[in-house]
């Protein structure tokens, strides 16, 4: 069992969990993730390691509630425990001397870019972070990022805080105004990463996206996490999860992420005791419907 040391809401439906996992903490590098199982009979889900403390033996996870398993996970309080945590998995971020690196995070992706920011700064880069959410209350990790970045640009869709607009709008501004940008690293919802890739493409700036396909084992054993990069099939858990965003087939990734939509809705309903009315076009998952509505905006 892996003990939860701290657990708190950072934003609506976004929770920060500090978990005892000394073996993982001692080897964590930016870009690594873990696979967790909340309880016996539970699903194995991948989560990025947002931070670690090798001495205390803890790792930090930032989790957004999007379905049954993340809901169960976010119901855990300090003092509780998770059944399994395995990692660190995946290849770490390639920290190079880019000159000026821009990190673009959306939603919980902001937690993914945090350790990258720290490492990039440490190896001598100028680091700018662009991150955001729907409105002010969804903006996370600003203080933490500010510690390591030369500039931070929080963005909100509704203009309630920081830059008014999508992260890609701010990114484009910077690409046009700064000539020194050597790389853009991005993590967040697939449509956002795809948009980031399209913004940087005409500028020819190296762009790395942290992909989030559905995973099972996380060790290269099942191939469920396969993604197409260029003309190659890659297993995101062992070959990634970070890939050249200009070569990733985002359409395929988006589609594959919908594979278990029906079963996920069932699981959610069971957990929350709701009965959908298909006649009204309800999939049953109120949370999902509101997320989808937001994504379609």
């Amino acid at each position, binding site marked *: 069992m892996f003990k939860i040391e701290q657990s708190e809401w950072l934003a609506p439906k976004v929770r920060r969990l500090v978990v005892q996992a000394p073996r993982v903490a001692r080897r964590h590098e930016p870009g690594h993730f873990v696979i967790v199982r909340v309880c016996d009979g539970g699903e194995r889900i991948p989560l990025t390691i947002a931070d670690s403390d090798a001495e205390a033996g803890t790792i930090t996870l930032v989790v957004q509630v999007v379905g049954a398993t993340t809901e169960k996970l976010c119901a855990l309080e300090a003092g509780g425990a998770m*059944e399994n945590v*395995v990692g660190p*998995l995946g290849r770490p971020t390639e920290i190079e001397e880019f000159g000026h690196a821009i990190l673009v995070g959306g939603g919980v992706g902001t937690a993914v870019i945090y350790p990258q920011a720290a490492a990039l700064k440490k190896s001598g880069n100028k680091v700018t972070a662009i991150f955001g959410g729907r409105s002010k209350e969804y903006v996370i990790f600003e203080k933490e990022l500010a510690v390591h970045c030369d500039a931070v640009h929080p963005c909100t869709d509704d203009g309630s805080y920081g830059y008014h607009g999508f992260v890609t709008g701010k990114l484009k501004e910077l690409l046009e105004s700064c000539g020194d940008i050597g790389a853009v690293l991005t993590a967040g919802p697939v449509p956002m990463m795809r948009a980031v890739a399209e913004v940087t493409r005409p500028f020819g700036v190296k762009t790395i996206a942290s992909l989030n396909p559905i995973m099972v084992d996380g060790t290269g*054993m099942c191939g*469920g996490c396969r993604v197409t990069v260029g003309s190659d*099939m890659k297993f995101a858990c062992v070959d990634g999860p970070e890939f050249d965003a200009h070569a990733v087939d985002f359409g395929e990734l988006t*589609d594959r992420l919908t594979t278990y939509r029906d*079963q996920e809705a*069932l699981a959610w309903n069971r957990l929350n005791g709701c009965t959908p009315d298909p006649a009204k076009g309800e999939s049953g998952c109120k949370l999902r419907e509101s997320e989808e509505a937001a994504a379609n905006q």
Partner: protein
Amino acid sequence: MLKPSERMKIQRQPMPEQDAQKRACNFEEVNCGYAADAASTEAQRCLQCKDAKCIGGCPVGVKIADFAEAIARDDLAAAADILFADNVLPGITGRVCPQETQCEAVCVRSKKGTPVGIGYLERYVADWARENRKDLFEPPNPTGKRVAVVGAGPGGLTCAGELAKHGHAVTVFEALHVAGGVLVYGIPEFRLPKDIVRAEVETLKARGVEIVTDVVIGQTYTIDELMKEEGFDAIFVANGAGLPVFQGIPGENLKGVYSANEFLTRVNLMGAYQFGQTDTPVIDASQIVVVGGGNTAMDAVRTSRRLGADPATLVYRRSREEMPARVEEVNHAEEEGVVFRMLCSPVEVLGDDNGWVRAVRCIKMELGEPDDSGRRRPVPIPDSEFEVPCQVFIEAIGTQANPLLTQTTPGLKTNKWGNIVVDENNMTSIPGVFAGGDIVRGGATVILAMGDGKNSAVSMHEYLMKSDGNGKASG
């Protein structure tokens, strides 16, 4: 004692099975096991050859004639002692070994009829032992040596058990959340109940073997760290050949295409067939096509059948005779209503407008000249393509060595397929690091992995006992 001529008259005792119609809808074990009288009758069929060929046919050299003799005189405790002396996981091998190509293939009785049901008898004794036999294991004197085993599959578990017998402190590191390797994530419940694997693992733990799950060697620790920082004196690597191969045909990333590993892992390890009580889903499909001819393909297609696929179709590019799967599994699959489409090969997975699999396009094959494996090479017949409708398409065409560990272990020699190279003592190019099972052999069998575990343990014991107090070999 019966005379050989009397023994020769006894017919092979059939294995009682769950009714085919019924079992095609459940995950309970297909074979029910011999009753006591059937077991002793079958044991009497053994001619007690002086030069028992069957022993040489067994990769771990079980004294088959001796344990059959003990069963025949109803001394199951003695039979169990004989069996366990050479095979620490008989409940498993009795169920999954390809006996027809090993011990039973060389049984003299197979020359003029059917061989002794060695696998069935082995299973019988193992099951009796699980219920009735006390583990008489005497904790040996600790040697003070520490050994790490990578991977809790049959190879790793066997090696761990053998090393513990010598008094070495053994820690098994397993990437997944449970021990067992393919025995728990691949081979389905209806062929190998997971309780049996659990019981074997518990026995090892009771003998002092420490099993640490959720640790991926190469990621959580490197081999180098295990030796230098974690203080292990020797390591046995048995991480299997778990990387699935895809055919490389168009449409493989459509929703509904699985590797057999993913499909079986979801259903077996994660319990997707009980979705609702468990949280891991598997795609609901009324028609499933599986490609391949080995045990993995057979497990995938029979699992599909049990999840309700009708038809569950098996596509294989050679003919039935060439299928590498255990004969019993092929027969069981057929009885359960699996549709066999031999001599054809998928060329494309076809999708609908929403990105879901709707069919697989296959081409017919004919057998040409023999290839390197001695089997006749399948050759496509031009203009013979046809479609098989399905919503799920499962590829069971083989696995490769997983590079996760080897890539992070500088100095570890591998061959061109990524399999670890070992010497005659199963030692790798790194002193003190041994390896065995599928990572060395490529996809092989449970018993060969166990044989490697056992032989490696012998070499490792020697290596450890001649090394100096610092755990470094002195010679």
